[in-house]
């Protein structure tokens, strides 16, 4: 009991220094939590993927299309429940810096295959009725102020020309792990216009989304699909949605690797701030510790005091840092375009990691001054002048 009181008293003896140290730790914990959030946001597509969806695309690379005719063949395979498809539209809205996903999808099946995009039945029905209707995500609608009935003009690049779409629905992401920044419209409409303007490119599909009955059979079904089109002009590569998203996420692995690295550098910085404070405190109290020893307190007792003090500071730092993380994440969201990180929130495990890092640092920072305090002989300690 007495040691606990002594420890807390000691921790705040230099009030300014303690406050600064706690602030330093809090900032570092915040930065750590923020960076982990960036990493998880980057992999959000992987996390949100469903085990019963496969993605079939051209084997050469994602930019090459598949024939529309493949659909029937895939749908006939055993264990396949339904097949949907989509094309990446690209294009420009207003100017080139306004980036968000714009895709032509099969209006009849797409929202069945992606139940996480939730939409009012009457809006969906309205969308299905109208050729040039589109559905936008709630986050996108909020960012640009899109309302039902608005017209969204796009300049096509992959599909040249001027395009206009009417907003007939706004989908809500099921939860915060789901991307709410997509714009989806009818593949049929795109295809009709392409057939008129450049007939050679009609009836092409960007990728198929294959819904299967049993996730355990995904490898088997994938092999079946790819075998169908082996040695054709458009060979396919089928993988689980998870593997597909992983491939995408991995393409930025240098940047994400860098962020990961920096988040560990930050732990190093917390260590330096706290370590510095602990070393200075213990150094200033060298004489005091010698007096303690003279009075008969063991070296272990003194070490425990230092250890406890370090821990107290790191606990306070973590306690302030965790709520700060939420604030910082919010601020970053205001600061960068939503489409950079469509899914951006702090995962619970991030809090745990950040707090754990702070505590570990608390332990590590105490080691050196503890050792020094234990080893200093009484006479030398008494003689110490700072």
């Amino acid at each position, binding site marked *: 009991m007495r040691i606990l009181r002594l420890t807390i008293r000691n921790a705040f003896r230099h009030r300014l220094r303690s406050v600064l140290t706690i602030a330093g730790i809090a900032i570092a914990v915040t930065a750590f939590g923020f960076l982990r959030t960036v990493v998880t946001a980057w992999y959000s597509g992987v996390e949100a993927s469903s085990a019963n969806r496969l993605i079939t695309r051209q084997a050469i690379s994602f930019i090459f299309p598949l024939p529309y005719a493949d659909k029937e063949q895939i749908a006939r395979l055993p264990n396949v429940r339904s097949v949907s498809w989509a094309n990446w539209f690209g294009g420009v809205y207003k100017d080139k810096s306004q980036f968000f996903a714009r895709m032509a999808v099969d209006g009849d099946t797409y929202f069945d295959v992606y139940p996480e995009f939730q939409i009012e039945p009457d809006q969906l029905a309205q969308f299905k009725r109208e050729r040039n209707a589109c559905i936008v995500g709630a986050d996108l609608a909020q960012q640009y102020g899109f309302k039902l009935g608005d017209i969204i003009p796009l*300049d096509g*690049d992959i599909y040249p020309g001027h395009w206009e779409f009417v907003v007939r629905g706004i989908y809500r992401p099921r939860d915060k792990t789901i991307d709410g920044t997509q714009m989806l419209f009818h593949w049929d409409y795109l295809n009709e216009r392409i057939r008129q303007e450049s007939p050679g490119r009609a009836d092409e599909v960007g990728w198929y989304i294959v819904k299967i009955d049993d996730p355990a059979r995904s490898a088997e079904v994938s092999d079946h699909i790819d075998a169908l089109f082996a040695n054709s002009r458009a060979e396919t590569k089928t993988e689980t949605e998870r593997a597909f998203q992983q491939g995408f996420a991995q*393409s930025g692995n240098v940047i994400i690797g860098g962020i990961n690295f920096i988040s560990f*550098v930050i732990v190093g910085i917390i260590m330096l*701030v706290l*370590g510095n*404070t602990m070393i200075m405190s213990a150094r200033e109290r060298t004489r005091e510790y010698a007096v303690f020893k003279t009075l008969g307190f063991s070296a272990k007792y003194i070490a425990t005091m230092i250890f406890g003090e370090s821990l107290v500071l790191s606990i306070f730092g973590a306690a302030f840092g965790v709520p700060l993380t939420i604030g910082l994440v919010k601020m*970053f969201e205001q600061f960068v375009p939503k489409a950079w990180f469509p899914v951006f929130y702090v995962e619970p495990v991030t809090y745990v990691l950040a707090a754990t890092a702070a505590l570990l640092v608390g332990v590590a920072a105490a080691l050196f001054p503890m050792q020094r305090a234990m080893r200093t002989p009484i006479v030398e300690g008494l003689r110490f002048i700072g």
Partner: protein
Amino acid sequence: MKIPLKYIARNLVTRKLTTGITVAGVALVVFVFSAVLMLAHGVHQTLVATGGTDNVIITRKSSNGEISSIIDGDTQSIILTLPYIAKGANGQPIVSREPVVVINLNKIGDGVSNVTVRGVSEPAFALRPQVRLVEGRMFAFGSRELIVGQAIESRFAGAQIGDVVKFAGDQWKIVGKFEAGKSAFDSELWGDALQLLNAFNRGNSISSMTLKLERPEAFESFQRAFEAEQRLNQFEPKVERKYFEEQSEFLSLFISVLGIFVTVIFSAGATIGATITMYAAVANRTVEIGTLRALGFRRRSVLTAFLLESCLLALVGGTLGLVLSSLLQFFRVSTLNFQSFAELEFSFALSPQVILSSLLFALAMGIIGGFIPAVHAARLKIVNALRGA
């Protein structure tokens, strides 16, 4: 009277451990800060080196990169009727019509990535003198052969001379390896444009058209002639260097925004570290400060001395951080450039601007961190200070 600099520097040496820790903190922050700037600069530098200043590249106006640009045959013919296009020794215009696609290749080690395959016509090599063959031989026009950029050769499995890459229902043999002066072309595969168009069934729809002007200054006249032609209003000519420079924008911006956001936040941590150290320095030297003041040094001199000490601390840290990050220049990294949707190899590149910003950044940490403790020191009353209160 000023307090000698030597006194200030000596003070730092006295408390080696604390000084060392603070320096290390600043060094880490500056290391990360400069590394981020170097990375963004590296992307930019690589793409700037890619484009020539007297070449013009024509793409579709609304396209973000060459792969999403399409130029049909009629448009190509119209472009060729424009004035100011340089002609080669054979009287033909110096033009390369290039289909650009990306294919998946396996990275050595792990993962798959997109690699640009560029079809070129013969004048391409006159247009891009930085491209030179270093191993093997040139691909033969009229056959399904490729030459590989050195960055792809060293990073991807099955992309070495003698290997066969399979795409578009055909086998493409890699017959040579080229270097392109550390530009984006280093991260590409090149082959005969006609063969690629043929294999991909694209008719004569190319992605971009690169041509040489009679004189570099003729660009504006060329642009006027281009814009005057109604049938070309969906297309856009750009100086090649500017075009590729713009291809670096998004990736550079992404790296910078993310990186600078982070460093600014945790520079606050390092600044607090510097404050703590300087406070301790003031507290430990109360008697000393009293003595200085008793000797006749003014408050302003004491303030300056402590501020300078803090700045020195930060500059030493900043320099250390820069030295560390400059070692990064030996590393080349490769990642997906979102705009071209393909792998791009680049290195961390140091520039005078990066050095200056990093040192200023360190200095700012020193000044902000040292200011309050320095004011505190200057405000001490002589009598109290001498008593060591």
